């Protein structure tokens, strides 16, 4: 069996978890089952999706103690499940939650962990995983010799794939959990001022750098964002350090690593630390007035020009385009 931890937020399955589930289905051998574990939720509609994306079994674990995510509580649940089911591998999406949970689980199980992987394969029974190191300047392939192979999968990299699955079997496993096992307590979820899509979860990231000249000009990018589906606002460190936008938006080596379908860089030079965070994007578009800017070396489509002239036209063209379709 390959076990996939399914992350739920606001009663919805995280897309990255469905990507992990799709990959588990692709990796599973003919007679091997794919199990999906849902902790702390039993919302309607989850079952249908899990089935669609390839789960043979769904393990529901819902107890009052598991209402909010805690690393120690969720580790306990997964460790008990792994003990009972002896899966070959456990896949977890490399989200904020997954990055917190997986290493704790690895230590509990006494196995290694391949973090934030971009490719998974199997060879003679063992799992292999490819992960970027040095912020993507090199790729490392590791073999996971212990069972289960514990792997976190980078969001937006593994394609979603629906399959025609027969009815998934639903299981409510016995988990013994006591309050003293839970060592952290989430007392509040503090959301940002505007509810914005996170750069790591967006299909399109629209980023601004020092070329934007001031905080108010991020508004230009926000307007583009309303015209582009599933998009989020990113930024270079210079823009963040200048106080123009919150650090949550920073892309790069000391910010977030993103791999959206489309990354758009406005007034960003393309310093090595910035490229580290976005060069695995599928398409890169850059607007910069300096034809020598290093960002053009990685851009699929570059415009040499003043962003203050290009962006308004772009907005207009996108609006025009929208009204035609």
């Amino acid at each position: 069996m390959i076990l996939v931890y399914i992350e739920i937020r606001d009663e919805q399955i995280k897309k990255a978890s469905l990507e992990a589930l799709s990959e588990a289905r692709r990796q599973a051998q003919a007679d091997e089952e794919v199990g999906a574990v849902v902790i702390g939720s039993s919302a309607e509609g989850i079952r249908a999706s899990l089935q669609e994306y390839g789960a043979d079994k769904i393990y529901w674990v819902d107890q009052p103690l598991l209402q909010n995510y805690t690393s120690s509580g969720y580790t306990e649940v997964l460790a008990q499940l792994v003990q009972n089911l002896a899966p070959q591998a456990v896949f977890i999406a490399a989200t904020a939650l997954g990055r917190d949970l997986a290493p704790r689980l690895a230590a509990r199980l006494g196995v290694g962990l391949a973090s934030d992987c971009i490719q998974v394969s199997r060879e003679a029974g063992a799992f292999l995983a490819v992960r970027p190191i040095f912020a993507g300047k090199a790729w490392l392939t590791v073999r996971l010799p212990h069972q289960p192979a514990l792997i976190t999968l980078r969001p937006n990299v593994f394609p979603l794939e629906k399959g025609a699955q027969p009815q998934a079997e639903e299981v409510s496993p016995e988990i013994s959990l006591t309050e003293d096992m839970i060592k952290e307590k989430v007392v509040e979820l503090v959301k940002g001022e505007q509810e914005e899509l996170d750069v790591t979860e967006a299909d399109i990231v629209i980023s601004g750098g020092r070329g934007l000249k001031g905080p108010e000009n991020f508004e230009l990018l926000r307007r583009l964002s309303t015209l582009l589906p599933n998009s989020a606002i990113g930024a270079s460190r210079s823009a963040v350090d200048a106080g123009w936008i919150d650090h949550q938006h920073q892309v790069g080596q000391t910010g977030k690593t993103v791999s959206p379908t489309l990354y758009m860089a406005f007034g960003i030079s393309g310093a090595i630390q910035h490229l580290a965070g976005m060069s695995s994007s599928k398409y890169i578009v850059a607007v910069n007035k300096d034809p020598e800017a290093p960002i053009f070396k990685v851009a699929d489509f570059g415009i040499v020009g003043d962003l203050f002239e290009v962006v308004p036209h772009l907005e207009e063209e996108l609006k025009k385009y929208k009204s035609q379709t």
Partner: protein
Amino acid sequence: MNLFVFVKRVPDTESKIRINETGTNVVFEGLNFVLNPYDEYAVEEALRIKETHGGQVTVFSVGPDETQAILKKCLAMGADEAVLIKDDEAELYDGWRIARIIAALLQKKYSEFDLLLFGKQSVGADNAQVPSMVAEMLGLPQVNVITKLELTDSKGVAYREIEGAHEKVEFNLPAVLSAQKGLNEPRYETLRGIMAAKRKQIPVLTLEELGLTPEEVKPRLEIVKVESPPARKAGQVIEDEPRVAAQKLVAFLHEEVKVI
């Protein structure tokens, strides 16, 4: 409060990374090594906690002799003591191994502490594994990727960054925390600090002294290969007047990228 900080020596972020001839690791010779940027926030936070609550800041690193340089930097920033756990193994990208060594250190030699502070991730290995693994090995609470911390004598509240929000997490001491950018603004070393750091002895512990055999710290991951990522091809760069450029871009988004 007894504050322990764990720091790593990493190639600076400007480094050009080359792959060795056997394709089994990157070439470390000639790289410029620095204190892992996230660990700087952890050191700074420990110093601030000491300033408000009193106590002692001890910095630990697992690595070769050259690691002394970053430990000296931590001393110059104001840490009271630094300890090197000597380990000449090259970077193996295995968080479990390092966590195992740190857990042994804390179980056998330095068992009195209130807080274990880490960076959220070591740049290079990019694992984000060691803090959570140490927490589990010692049965401690963990809060990772924190941007704000408030402590009383026996409890803490930390704000942990997640997608588009922060979780406010309560925990009892002792605990494991890992620092994210935004937690604080690290101080520079002062000249006086640098002079004082020069005079300080850095005790060195070996893995044998921690009672660890090579077998016990054998990595849990095997390196198969290290390679350069496929190069991105530069695409088209246009210099048309803004309206035309915007039109061409919209066509590109529609026809190639297919996002509209």
